């Protein structure tokens, strides 16, 4: 922003604009996953029995544990934003660190889950899967694509939140200007919302 000579430099921050920009980005994420949900719906309608059989081979307990992990991480994220806005920096750091740890826990669970499935010979284009009916091939193709894409979003979220943690520690994000953290929180919550839909589609619909 240009200033008149002699006046102190004013940094213009548009809070509403920053939030709107983030929401517009989230809309593109909703459309991205929405397309995959559409694909899932169409193929499920075409191969109901194969999708049912595919779902029965997934570990429900792991899916449910990961849901609780992500829901709890959403809580700690919301608490981190509230703590920052109230000026409780130490509390905000703890809640943010907890969110990052829970993100890692989710990814570790996912690693073990995928490892077990790959160990059973179930992965895209595997000899075992090629012997299965077309519907099951599609089910596991969508399972790996959608949970994989979601996993990439969790990794991106963990990296973003780690940067936010540094910002909070260094006082770059404060109670006066917390929009960066709020926007990172919006992203993390959307990742949680996507998983809320993935749980019933893949793990519970059997």
């Amino acid at each position: 922003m240009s200033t008149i000579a002699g006046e102190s430099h004013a940094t213009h921050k548009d809070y509403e604009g920053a939030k709107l920009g983030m929401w517009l980005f989230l809309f593109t994420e909703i459309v991205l996953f929405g397309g995959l949900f559409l694909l899932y719906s169409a193929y499920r309608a075409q191969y109901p029995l194969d999708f049912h059989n595919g779902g029965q081979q997934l570990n429900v307990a792991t899916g449910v544990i990961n849901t609780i992990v992500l829901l709890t991480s959403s809580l700690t994220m919301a608490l981190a934003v509230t703590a920052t806005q109230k000026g409780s920096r130490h509390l905000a750091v703890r809640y943010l660190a907890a969110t990052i740890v829970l993100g890692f826990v989710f990814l570790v669970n996912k690693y073990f889950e995928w490892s077990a499935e790959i160990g059973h010979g179930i992965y895209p284009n595997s000899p075992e899967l090629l012997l299965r009916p077309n519907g099951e091939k599609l089910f596991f193709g969508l399972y790996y694509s959608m949970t994989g894409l979601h996993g990439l979003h969790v990794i991106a979220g963990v990296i973003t939140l780690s940067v936010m943690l540094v910002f909070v520690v260094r006082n770059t994000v404060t109670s006066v200007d917390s929009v960066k953290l709020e926007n990172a929180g919006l992203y993390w919550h959307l990742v949680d919302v996507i998983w809320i839909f993935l749980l019933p589609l893949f793990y519970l619909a059997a």
Partner: protein
Amino acid sequence: MERLEARPHIAAQRTSVVVWMALVFMTALLVFISRTYHEALSVAAMLTITPLKAGLVFYYFMHLKYESVELKSMVFVTLALLTLLIAFIFLDLSYR
């Protein structure tokens, strides 16, 4: 000097905890109903509880409750369009 045009609404910690408890309860309920293997009940539970859970996250955790009518409308239109697309897919599939 920094100038902010608007200040965010500060959500109460208690509200966040209550919302989290509701989300965990609804997850448990969804899992329980799906384990009854009653197809109609399971589908009904998935179609109601899952959007409700997402709605709670949008409304409270993502602070949509405290946002402007314009932003709320934008989110609503996006989600409504997606729902409409899914409905059209099923409309097409059911008449094949």
